């Protein structure tokens, strides 16, 4: 179906995304990153063995793109797809719903809310969702291969401490900004201050008028 559409859309070949084959390019990058993650956390590959060679089609509604995922030969293969292609499981949802699938427990809830269409074997979608939501890379172990055990642990602890401090600073900044936006700021003077200012102004005006009168009296006396 998508291929037919692409053929019919030959007049759109000037479209930069089509010309540069951006969906293919982006998916090849995503595939590379996820396969790197699989190497760093072997548990993910282990969890995906139940869906080995099974094809999951994911239709991302707001991007109008369909993606196929196959876990084969200990690697993830991710390609663009046609909706009409054969699949063991197909899910269709918008991107927010797909992100929410990190929690496999809400899968049925999303289907009931009509936010997610699912055809085929539910276990395949759950396996992918479960595997990637529990990804846990042992960074000190990975780093130790390059810089040794102790420095790797030290570096990891420093980075964790930085992360902790960073999140504290972020939380504090967020709370300060919130209070700045919510609290009433003394941008104008208080009404009592205004009343006092007016009173002093009136007194000054009276004194100036009195001086003016005396000056005029003196000028009249001189000219006479």
């Amino acid at each position, binding site marked *: 179906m998508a*291929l*037919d559409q*692409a*053929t019919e859309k*030959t007049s759109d*070949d*000037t479209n930069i995304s089509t*010309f*540069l*084959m951006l969906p*293919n*390019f982006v*998916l*090849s990058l995503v595939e590379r990153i996820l396969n790197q993650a699989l190497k760093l956390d072997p548990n993910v590959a282990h969890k995906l063995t139940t869906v*080995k*060679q*099974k*094809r999951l089609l994911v239709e991302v509604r707001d991007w109008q793109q369909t993606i*196929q995922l*196959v876990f*084969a*030969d200990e*690697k993830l*293969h991710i*390609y*663009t*797809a*046609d909706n009409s*292609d*054969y699949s063991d499981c197909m899910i269709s949802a918008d991107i927010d719903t797909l992100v929410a699938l990190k929690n496999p427990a809400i899968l049925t809830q999303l289907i009931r809310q009509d936010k997610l269409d699912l055809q085929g074997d539910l276990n395949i979608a759950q396996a992918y969702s479960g595997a990637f939501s529990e990804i846990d890379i042992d960074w000190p172990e990975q780093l130790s291969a390059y810089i040794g055990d102790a420095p790797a642990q030290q570096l990891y602890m420093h980075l964790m401490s930085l992360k902790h401090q960073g999140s504290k600073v972020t939380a504090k900044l967020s709370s300060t900004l919130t209070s700045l936006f919510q609290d009433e700021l003394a941008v104008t003077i208080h009404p009592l201050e205004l009343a006092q200012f007016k009173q002093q102004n009136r007194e000054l005006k009276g004194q100036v008028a009195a001086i003016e009168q005396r000056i005029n009296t003196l000028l009249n006396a001189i000219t006479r």
Partner: protein
Amino acid sequence: MNETPEKTTHFGYKTVAENEKASMVADVFHSVAAKYDVMNDLMSFGVHRLWKRQTIASSGVRKGHHVLDLAGGTGDLTAKFSQLVGETGQVVLGDINSSMLKVGREKLHNLGLVGNIDYVQMNAEMLPFPDNSFDVITIAFGLRNVTDKDKALRSMYRILKPGGRLLVLEFSKPKHEALSKAYDFYSFNLLPTMGKLVANDSESYQYLAESIRMHPDQDTLKAMMNEAGFEQTTYQNLTGGIVALHRGFKY
């Protein structure tokens, strides 16, 4: 005395005897086999990988399928197909050129891909397989080198299973005038120079540029596929039509 007129075909822009073309093409690929992958990356700026990804995406290959990667050369498509069909499937990497097959076999062995791949030296016009043998056949950047393309398409149709599909990835005709001119300049000026510098072989890359111009355009190839018996034939222009991916089914 009447002499039978010799059948001719084109070899780039040259007209040659039909029975000579195969050996001339063979010479080209014997010459470039060792540097084939490097040159592909250089010439296409790596985009050939995306064209091949699109071919795999459109192939519908799955577990247990039998796939023929015709003119498979150094095995880029075979490597992916081998992983996708799994242990119960089979991929045949076919090429007329022994040097290309050798490079392909070595590369795939080094990637650890063994067990479900066969390497067969074959002529696309006379495929050595029984009728209805394959679920998917691909021919990537190979059809333009075949002497009798119609015969080759009929041969592919014969060995495809009902419900199977053929994918032809091949250079084609750019859809826009400006792109076409830029592409011509690149093909006839820069490409042979790159071939000379990297592979020390400018003639083979001159042949590449000429053979692309002599290859049927998108609609002609689509008509040829229909003529060979394929149904629901469609094509997709990639990178503005520099390359086209044709797809046809056998029912």
